């Protein structure tokens, strides 16, 4: 399928447990992610998939466990530190900035890389102005990549669902992440939109070597595009391995048969 070389482990999650009050969302979950791979997290509704992503980039703080990222061990991430370290993500329920245009939403993805201070920006002075134009160029590359030229200046709130999802991916890509976390990137899309999205995900992985961790409901898609799959059920890990292995894992089959939806 692709010629990229899967590298060493860059993210290792060790014995993660997360509770909200008395409710256990995740229980003692461990798995690792290798550089350049597409790693899927699957499981029935309420299995704790989104919570897992939220732990990875620091939106939630796990009560127990460690996150080892590029050899550095820590108890939890901070969202903006995760962003600085090269994590970008999309959300299950689109979390775009509704009041802004597509272009501006994508530009926020580059905020981290913008250095000039607000005074220079207020004066639209040399470096600030140059920087703004330079990053615009980068963002335009993402727009071109995702084929959303025609909606560049449309406020995101007015876009149909499928396009919003694509814009959200664009915002993540604008940050040139090394690890991309995708929370159900194809949920609620029609077949054609799903195909497009699949193509984009594979292209990102292939062209930029981005490591991708993705949650997806569509089993066909997951089995097609991912290198390895983690299966969660009721906050516990019940399977982990290559798609074919996972597909034949009796626990996984039971979990899925038991919770048809």
């Amino acid at each position, binding site marked *: 399928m692709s010629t990229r070389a899967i590298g060493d482990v860059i993210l290792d999650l060790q014995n993660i447990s997360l509770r*909200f009050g008395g409710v256990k969302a995740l229980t003692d979950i461990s798995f690792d992610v290798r550089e350049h791979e597409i790693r899927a997290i699957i499981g029935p509704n309420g299995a704790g998939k*989104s919570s897992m992503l*939220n732990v990875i980039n620091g*939106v939630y703080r796990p009560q127990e466990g460690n996150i080892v990222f590029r050899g550095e061990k820590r108890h939890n991430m901070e969202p903006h530190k995760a962003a600085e370290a090269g994590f970008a993500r999309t*959300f*299950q329920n689109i*979390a775009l900035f509704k009041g802004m245009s597509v272009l501006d939403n994508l530009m926020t993805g580059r905020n981290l890389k913008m250095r000039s201070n607000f005074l220079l920006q207020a004066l639209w002075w040399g470096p600030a102005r140059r920087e703004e134009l330079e990053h615009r160029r980068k963002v335009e590359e993402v727009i071109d990549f995702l084929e959303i030229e025609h909606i560049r200046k449309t406020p995101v709130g007015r876009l149909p669902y499928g396009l919003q999802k694509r814009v959200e991916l664009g915002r993540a890509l604008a940050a040139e992440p090394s690890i991309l976390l995708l929370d159900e990137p194809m949920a609620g899309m029609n077949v054609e939109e799903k195909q497009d999205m699949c193509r984009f995900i594979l292209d990102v992985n292939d062209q930029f070597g981005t490591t991708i961790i993705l949650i997806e409901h569509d089993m066909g898609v997951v089995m097609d595009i991912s290198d390895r799959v983690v299966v969660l059920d009721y906050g516990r890990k019940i399977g982990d391995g290559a798609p074919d292995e996972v597909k034949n894992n009796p626990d996984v089959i039971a979990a899925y048969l038991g919770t048809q939806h």
Partner: protein
Amino acid sequence: MQFFIEVTIGGLLSGVMYSLVALGFVLIYKASGVFNFAQGAMVYFAALCVVGCVDKGAPLWLAVILAFIIMVLFGIATEKFVLRKLVNQPPITLFMATIGLAFFIEGAAPILWGDTVRPVDLGIVDDPIAAIMDSTGMLISTFDLAAAGIAALLVAVLALFFQKTKIGRALRAVADDHQAALSIGIPLQHIWAIVWSVAGFVALVAGLLWGARNGVQFALTFTALKALPVLILGGFTSVPGAIVGGLIIGASEKLAEIYIPPVLAGWFGGNFGGIEGWFPYVMALLFLLVRPEGLFGERHIDRV
């Protein structure tokens, strides 16, 4: 020490009044998620209605009933012309709308009823209670005590209303989950109209008590400003919180007013009275930093 206790009790008793106003806030917030800045204006308006009716020659009891009817009509009108049009707007927008509502009432009330300061006589004398004064030497006003009693009664009635009546249960259902309430067939708009009427009733009681004490005047609208820190302290959704918060704020602001200015004057020289104006806020603010959900509020988890 005696002075301290006297000040504290005085403070607690006026705190009851804050609680009363805060209660109106909580009711509306719980049922409709609206932070009603106009509650203070409603207190003023309700009191003016009573006074106005008395001016026109109605006996007090009739005036109170008329005022109550007016408040109910007002509640329905608010729901119909303002809230219903703002469904699904962010809470901040609703909040700002109630600021507008407050201005509207503050402008309309004096046009309807006149803007002079007028007394209202509930027949309760504002004298120290002799028995207490004799035994402990402390000055505790009969009126304050009666007011506290009425407030306590009101809280009890409301508690019963919420627990025992069908409407009350419906109100609680709405507070917990709008969707759920809809699905069991309660028209949300009726609920809101009822809640605003109940809040109007609470405002009426508060207005009468405050008015009887200080005269019915524009300053009554400021009670809303006092109720805000109470809410922060007690939590926006908790009836007990409103009561406890009101007591704490009432007592502490009186104590602060008595004990802090001399200290400041000692440092800087001059007169530092009027601390009451901001002390509850700063206290609430500091409290917020420690416990953002308030004493009785529920901790909220952002789901992503």
